[in-house]
């Protein structure tokens, strides 16, 4: 069994207004050294396989087909072996 931890974020070239609004809030708290705040999604799922390679392939396919819209989003993930 594998666990995939997936991050989906707006593409770097796209302005993230939510991140900007949160960044302004952080700065208004007095943290003036906080820059480039970006907000994304975190997704965890389990894959019933014994193969590291298959876990990666499946996760990548799921990201491409559903979890991320590559017109506006980038994704990255890691897979780790877990017990049942």
């Amino acid at each position: 069994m594998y666990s995939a931890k997936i991050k989906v974020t707006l593409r770097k070239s796209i302005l993230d207004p939510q991140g900007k609004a949160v960044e302004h809030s952080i700065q208004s708290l007095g943290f003036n050294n906080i820059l480039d705040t970006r907000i994304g999604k975190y997704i965890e799922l389990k894959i019933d396989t014994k193969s590291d390679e298959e876990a990666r392939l499946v996760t990548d396919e799921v990201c491409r087909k559903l979890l991320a819209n590559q017109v506006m989003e980038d994704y990255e993930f890691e897979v780790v072996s877990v017990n049942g």
Partner: protein
Amino acid sequence: MSKAKFGVVVFPGSNCDHDAYNTLKHILNQDTEFLWHKDSSIGNRNVIIVPGGFSYGDYLRCGAIARFSPIMKDVVRHASNGGVVIGICNGFQILCESGLLPGALLRNASLKFVCKNVTLNIVNKNTIFTSAYNGNGMVKPGKMVVPVAHGDGNYICDEDTLKSLNDNGQVVFRYEHNPNGAIDNIAGIINKTGNVLGMMPHPERASEEIVGSGDGRYLFESVINSVN
């Protein structure tokens, strides 16, 4: 009687399905039926409306789940064969997610849900969706006054796509005053073959003067005229 047979798709969370049905069935006296998202066929319907709302609670991304519903497979097949499909608001988001239209819809630049009447410039009047806009009977001649009601209407696409949209006359509606940050003030686009329209504003909610504007009605009348 026109040969148009409208089908209005109903997803869990659709909330403009009845507005579309009312406009088509009761105002324009068209043969209109609802299509349930679990149906796998559009049957004998030849104009499909993918309505506004919050299909599947907008989970993951607006329209991302709806595109995998059984009915959408047949809607995509219909569109690929040249069939007429109109996606309004959430329907526009679903058509982008389905790959029937290019680009995507981001969160409004203001981060606020916008709900108000907007004025649209009809950029391309040579489409099956706009041919009946001759200025008569409209609130502002040559323009279209319709409501928007969305949180994610900020249209985006890459530069090459934008160029090809403009070059091919695929931009149909532009906002006079941009309410959401959409690139190039884009409010509505068609696909390359001109049979699929997606737009954020709601023509089905502006089809009777009593609600403030009847401008949206001509969009459906254009389609009715085009189906022979």
